[in-house]
Every structure is written in C-alpha cells, then in structure tokens.
C-alpha cells in the first residue's frame, strides 16, 4: 500500500516462456519504428498535439529456493505497446498487447478518447519543456555477463550452495532468490526521437532464520547484497570488491559472494537470539551504506520529487515538507554543511542508469543538496515550467509498456567525505553509539518529516569500541534534524550502492528500481527506541 514500499510488480505476471526463449531477439527495430509511427500518425490525425509510443519487451528470470529445494524457476516475457497523447491540452493513455497496426490504431483512438473526455475538467493544460530530437539512437547497460546466457542450473546450484552454507552454520530455515530483469524498450515520439534501449538489473537475496523453540523466539538475517544495474558478473564474488566491516562483518561493493554472506548470516541469526535488548535513549549512529541507502531513499529521494511537492501524489504517497518556498529561499538547511546529495541517472552499475528516460530526454547528473542547502528537485517535461526551469531532468519512467510514464526517483546519493576517514576511524571516535548495517523495517509520514528505521544487524559502540550485538533497535527522527546531525562521512574508499528493486508510487501503483550510494556516515544524538513487546 505505501509508497516507497517493496512491491511485487505487475510484470511478475508476464507470460511464462522457456529460458531459451529469453534469448530470442524479439521484434526487429525497423518493424518497431514502423508500428510506432502508426501510433504517432493516428494520434496526430485525431487532433493530438503530442504523442509518444513505447514498445516494450520485458524479460525476467526469477529463481526461488528454500533449504535444499528449488521452489520455482520463472521466465517471463511481457510484450506490448503503450501510447500517450496530448489532446485538447490533456493527457490520455492506452496500452495493448496486440502489437499490430490494427491493435495500435485502436489503442491510440482509446487514448485520444480519454484525453478528450477528460479535457472537460482540465484546468491546467499540459505544458511540455522543449526536448532535443535525438533521431535514431540506442543505449545499453554495460554488462559483462548476460543473465540470459547463463544456464539456469548454474544459478540454481549457486543458490543451493548458499542455502547449504547457511544450514551447515546453524540456520533452521533459509529462502533465497535471484531476480534478473532485462527491459528492451523502444521509444518514439512526435518530437522526432527513435530510441532503442537494453537495460539489465540483478538482485540476489536471501533470508536466514534461526529458531529457539524453547524460548519461543525466532530471528532472521537478510542478505547484505544490493540490487544492481549489472549483469550476472555481480555474482562473481571478487575479493577485490569486498570490504571488512566491524565485528567480522563482510561488505560488498560491485561484486557479491552469496555463499560467504549466507555463512555469516546463519551465525549472526543465531547470535541475535541472545543479543542484548537495547536501552532506549539518544545514541550516535554509525550507519553503513547498505542501511543508509534506504534512509536516503525515504528522507531525501521521495520528498524532493517535484510531483509530490506540487500535490500530484497527494492522494497516495503524499506531499512533501520540502516546499517551493523553502527551495526559493536559497538557504534552506536540509542537512549539515558536509551533506551533499546528488541525483544521477548515468551512474554506472546503478539501477536507475539509462541513456534516455521514458519520454526521450537524455539523462544527466544534478545537485539536490549542496553544502547542506536545498538546491533542486527531480522533475520531468510537464513539470519543470512550474519551477521556472526549461529543461527536464530526465527522470520519467513507466514500469512497463502498459503503464503510463511519470516522474520517478533517479539514483540519489550522498557524496563521500573529502578527507581520508575509514569505518574504524569513525567507530574509534564514538563514545555511546550503535553501528547499523543492512535494511530493516522502515516507515515515514506522508510529508517525509517523521521516520522510523530498523536495520539488519546492530552493534553497540562504547568508548570507541564495538562491545556486542544489540536487538530490538529502531531509531526515530525528523528528516531535517537527522541530516543536520550528520557530523562525519567516510571517504570514497567506503562508498557503495544500496538499491530498491521494487519501489512503489502512483495510482495505479507502479514499481521502479533505484540505487543510493553513500559511505558510512555518523549522525549524533539520534533517538533510539526499544521495539521489544510481550504478547
């Protein structure tokens, strides 16, 4: 229900196909262009002043296992076209999986009919920022190994090895999964662009559970992986991409060792069963990037979406505390002066990286918060005129061909600190604190003021040293207070990306995938509550 939620996307429900069929090249580009032109020409002939067509082929492979069993191997293909028009100054959209001249004409007529029906209640005619006509261009995620070419048996074996490692190290249960996505997107618009893109994403994950039946307790430890905009090479587990965390924790940058992580997860899940329950109060928090990424997502990414600020999301995800007057003042202190937050749709390896967005705008990188001051939002073609800008930021996206595209969060990341500073340096400086790694429970209000976050693992810091594991930890804060309490950020050697594979927004709800990079960071005097209850 909630925005920012982990949602199961509708494209999970695509048609099932064989693994071999994933390798089929699909419709050729000349046919796509011809069919897209049918939509554009039909729209124009019916009086539309603008139209775009997206022919999408969405290929997914998901592998699910538990303990020593393969639960499911799912290969899906979803193919169709979505047509968006402006008629009488009003948007209309329709989609069909009948990608024929006749099917496309009918869908286009439907889109125009919707636009015209709605124009009767239109009070703010659509105004599009100019966009460059790109002609025929293409873009691909730079991958080394295409998941479609890796045998399913190799993926199954890897997950079962991770499961076995967890069970051998004391887990009672383990579920693991591999999500692999390939979006083959063709975009054409009446602005003269024909854009062909091939986008890849991957997410390996697991949950390990340890049970103390006598005490009536169970604890779970999830994977420390991040979903990435990479190929299957992410599963190589390269030593060069591993980092040593505190208390024996292993952390991963651009390559993931799932067997090693599952081994440690089982040991940690067991350790959690007897971990000390936290004493509530104020603590200095040392937040690891795979944890901090979700806090960035919820407390920076979402509130700086211009559609939220303007009220377009008021009925679902909500609005934003970061109102236009705060931005216009030029001195709104979003965070402390070491806080620099950037939006970037071009970051290599990130989930949000594409060459062009879903309305044909070339992607870029821009500042959201510089030296702690709010400087900009995330906006698309029909919004930027409302903040007196004339160039879209290139962050328009639709979950699939049968969803209308709208403003979605680009990768939003915290820049690393400029001075050399490691995790160990940071922990040494903390007298009373908690080190938190990995994502956990998360909740934030509809204007993004008040939030509460948990985590995957928690370690107590006393007088500069980790003294043991904690349980029942959640921190509550206010976005502006929290970011202004940021006192230290590790350098770029610690920089890693967190990702959200299924981020929900909009009505009907759609998911998108987005990354958030950061280095381990310290936040002083944050309120920690104890979440233990007895029922």
């Amino acid at each position, binding site marked *: 229900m909630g925005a920012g939620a982990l949602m199961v996307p509708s494209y999970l429900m695509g048609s099932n196909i064989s693994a071999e069929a994933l390798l089929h090249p699909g419709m050729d580009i000349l046919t796509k262009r011809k069919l897209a032109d049918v939509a554009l020409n039909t729209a124009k002939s019916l009086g539309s002043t603008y139209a775009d067509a997206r022919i999408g082929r969405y290929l997914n492979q998901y592998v699910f296992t538990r303990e020593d069993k393969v*639960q499911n191997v799912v290969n899906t293909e979803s193919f169709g076209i979505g047509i968006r028009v402006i008629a009488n100054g009003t948007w209309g959209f329709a989609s069909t999986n009948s990608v024929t001249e006749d099917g496309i004409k009918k869908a286009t007529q439907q889109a125009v009919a919707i636009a015209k*029906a709605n124009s009767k*209640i239109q*009070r703010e005619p659509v105004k599009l920022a100019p966009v460059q006509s790109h002609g025929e261009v293409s873009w691909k995620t730079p991958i080394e190994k295409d998941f479609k070419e890796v045998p399913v048996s190799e993926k199954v074996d890897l997950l079962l090895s991770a499961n076995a490692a967890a069970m051998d190290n004391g887990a009672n249960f383990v579920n693991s999964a591999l999500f692999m996505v390939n979006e083959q997107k063709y975009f054409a618009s009446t602005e003269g662009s024909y854009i062909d893109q091939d986008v890849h994403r991957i997410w390996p994950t697991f949950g390990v559970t340890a049970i103390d039946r006598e005490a009536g307790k169970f604890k779970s430890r999830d994977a420390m992986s991040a979903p990435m905009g990479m190929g299957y090479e992410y599963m190589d587990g390269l030593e060069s991409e591993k980092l040593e965390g505190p208390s024996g924790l292993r952390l991963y940058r651009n390559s993931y060792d799932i067997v090693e992580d599952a081994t440690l997860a089982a040991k940690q899940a067991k350790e959690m069963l007897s971990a000390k329950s936290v004493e509530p109060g104020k603590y200095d928090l040392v937040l690891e990037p795979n944890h901090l990424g979700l806090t960035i997502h919820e407390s920076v990414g979402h509130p700086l979406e211009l559609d939220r600020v303007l009220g377009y999301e008021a009925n679902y995800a909500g609005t934003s505390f970061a109102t236009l007057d705060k931005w216009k003042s030029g001195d709104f202190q979003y965070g402390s002066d070491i806080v620099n937050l950037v939006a970037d749709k071009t970051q290599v390896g990130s989930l949000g990286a594409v060459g062009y967005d879903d309305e044909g705008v070339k992607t870029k990188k821009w500042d959201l918060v510089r030296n702690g001051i709010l400087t900009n939002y995330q906006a698309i073609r029909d919004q930027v005129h409302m903040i007196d800008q004339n160039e879209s930021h290139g962050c328009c996206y639709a979950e699939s061909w049968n969803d209308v595209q709208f403003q979605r969060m680009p990768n939003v990341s915290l820049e690393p600190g400029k001075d050399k500073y490691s995790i160990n340096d940071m922990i040494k400086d903390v007298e009373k604190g908690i080190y938190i790694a990995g994502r956990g429970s998360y909740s934030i209000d509809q204007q993004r003021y008040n939030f509460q976050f948990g985590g995957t693992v928690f370690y107590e810091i006393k007088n500069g040293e980790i003294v043991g594991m904690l349980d029942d930890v959640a921190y509550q804060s206010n976005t502006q207070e929290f970011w202004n309490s940021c006192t230290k950020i590790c350098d770029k050697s610690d920089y890693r990306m967190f990702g959200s594979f299924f981020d929900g927004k909009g009505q009907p709800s759609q998911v998108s995938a987005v990354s958030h990079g950061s280095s381990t960071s310290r936040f002083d005097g944050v309120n920690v509550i104890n979440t233990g209850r007895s*029922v």
Partner: protein
Amino acid sequence: MAIYTKEEARQIMEKALSFSTADACVINMGGSESGNIRYARNTVSTSGHRSNQTLAVEASFGKKSGTATVDEFDDESLESVVKRAEELAKLAPENPEFMAPLGPQTYDESISFVDATANIKPEYRAEVAAKSINPASEKDVTAAGFLNDSSGFSAMLNSSGLFAYNKSTDVDFTVTMRTNDGTGSGWVTRDYNDVTKFDPAEAAKVAIDKAVMSREARAIEPGKYTVILEPAASVDLLRNMSGAFNARTADEGRSFMSKDDGTKMGEKIVDERVNIWSDPLHPDVPTSTWNGEGMPLKKMKWIENGVVKNLAYSRYWAEQQGVDPVPFPSNFIMEGGDASREELIKNTKRGILVTRLWYIRSVDPQTLLYTGLTRDGTFYIENGEIRYPVKNFRFNESPIIMLNNLETLGEQVRINGNLIPYMKVRDFTFTSLSDAV
C-alpha cells in the same frame, strides 16, 4: 474481447487440453478490462485504459512441471502453447512439493459481477472527478483522487476433470482533500462490486469536511490513548494479522502463531468479543468461490470468541500434516456492534479519533508489532465531543494487543473488499509526533 463467457472459456480450454500428452495438465485462463482517472490540484492529471487476456498451461510429467502462456486462442496457438509447456516440464527440476491436480469440485455460483460496473465509460470517470473537484473549489480545498474500475473473468480446467469459472467487477475510489492553507487534510475511500452503490458526491463531502475540521491541529503528548479507529484505520493492521494464519510458518516455529509445542490453534489470543470469518458469498463483499488451487471457498471461521478456530493449509502442507486443506481467505469479515461512529464518540471521556493509518510496516514478526502514522483527520475527543484536531502520531502497536484492549465494537463498513467495524480500543501506543499534514 477480454471477457469470455463460461461456455466460451470452457470450449477454448477443452480445445487446449485436447493437445496435451502430459501426465497432468492444468489450464488457467483470464482476461480483464480496466480504466482509471487520476486527478490532483483540482484538475485531471493522468488516466488510462488497459486490456489483457491470457491462457496459461501447466504441464507435468511426474513431479516436473512447466508453464507456458499465450494471449491468442486459435487452434494453432493453443497447440503450440501446450507443446511449449510440455517441453519446459521435461527440462524442469523436480518439485518435491508437487501436488497432482484436483478432481471435479462443486462451487457455489459467485455474485461478484455487476454489468453496470463493466459498462463504465471515460465520461463517467470524468464526472466522478468533477464531483470532487467542483465542491472542493467552492470550499477553498484542493482535491486529489483516483477512480479505477475493472471487470474480468478467470477460469480453470484440468486433466482430472475440474472446471471452474468466475466473473467479477470492482470499482475503487479514493480522494484526498487538502485545505489551500496547507493545514488541513481529509480522505475517504469507497469500493464496490456494483458501481450503482457508489455516491461520489457523498464521498467527496466526507473528505472535504474532514479537511476543514482538521485545520490548525494542536500538538499533544504521545503516549497511550483510548482511540476510536475508523474501519480504514484498522483494516491494514487486521489484514497483516491475518497473514499469521499460515499453518506452515506456524508449524515451522517462525510465526506469531507458533509456540514451543506446536501452534496457538484453539487458544484465546484476543478479547472474547472478537469474531472474524471469511465468506465469498457475503452480499456486501462477494468474491470468487474458488482459489488458485481450484479449492472451493466457503464461509470459514478464523477467530471465534477470541479463540483461533482455523489456520490456512495449502494442499501440500495439509497432506504433510495429515489434515484437510484450508484455503486462505478471500475476504475478511469482523463482527461489529450496533454503535455508530457518533455514539462511540459520545461515550468517550477522553480519546483520539483516527481516520486512517499510513505507511504501516512490520517491526517484529514475533509479536506482530507494526509501526506507522495517523493521517488525514486525527481528532481529540473530550467528554463525548470532538474538541479539536491533533497533529499526527507515529504508533508502534500490535493488532493482537489492540484486539485485547477492545472497549466497544461499532457498525461494520466495507473497506477494500472486507467488512470491518468501527472500534474503540484503550491504551493504543503512540510513540512520537509528526508535523505532517
């Protein structure tokens, strides 16, 4: 044509089945038409139409299964999709939890399809939006809303002789009204199978009134309060609780329903006035009368007088445990009382009226502890009257604790396909304040 009749669907599926050479074959077919309108800033924003139809064949050889899907239903396509499914099955790993298809079943005739809903046109959706936008403008309020209507069918046929068919329609509406000074917000939700029961002007008025009433909210200390939860406030906590009725996770020891020597089946877990059941033929919240495994759905008690009466067993887990399968519920009906919302308020000395809870997330699955926030209309009650709006709270609470602290049950209301009563509950735990409006 995305909506096929029972006979049309049966003929297509029988044709597909005739091509099968597998040990077992299950065919599922479905189609839907849906339309929506979205508006904000007192004007229309995006809207659209979707049409989809699909037929899925699951072929099995021994415990190896493969599934293939097609969206065209001519003979050649049907033969080809069956062949693809069989090829996939031969290459698949064995599924140790494979269950042979069910034989013929008897299903009740469902009542979930209404022609009026299936016939909604774009002009109707625009009219609904106008019935929010126009009164909002008159009251210095801004409307943002969403209407989605859908009609669809689903059917199942298998090689053991089972055939099932269902048609359904739904209309879902929500609107948020925000005062133009930014200090007040109200919200309403309505959902029906039958659109003729929907009164968009009445719904809009509820949200506008709440928005106006909630302006200039005061901050009061977080803590434990008696609350009157409108059905939209409790529905998600209750639905999250229903997830714990999975017998398998309970048996495995990793659920609220687990205990050291088994499960909490037969134990009293909440106040004895709590009665919860599901019923696909309830006239206010009808659903399909069969589930994805082809199991008939019947009226089923989950909590009776506070005691756990049933846990849900998939066919596989039921076989493992030597019990009959119990399908998961398709709706959620909680017994209410006679008290209206106004009477609940009148009989409250000091408390908080909550319109809805938002961004609810699990904090601890062991205790079913959840966190989230109040939203779109939170009011302080004193001596039987709403005194003033209060700032939103963050809560950390378990529905189990909530239902143990039950004071009064009020009237039932349909909410997201379920029937939930107004509830007065003592000692609901608010842990911090939010500035959000």
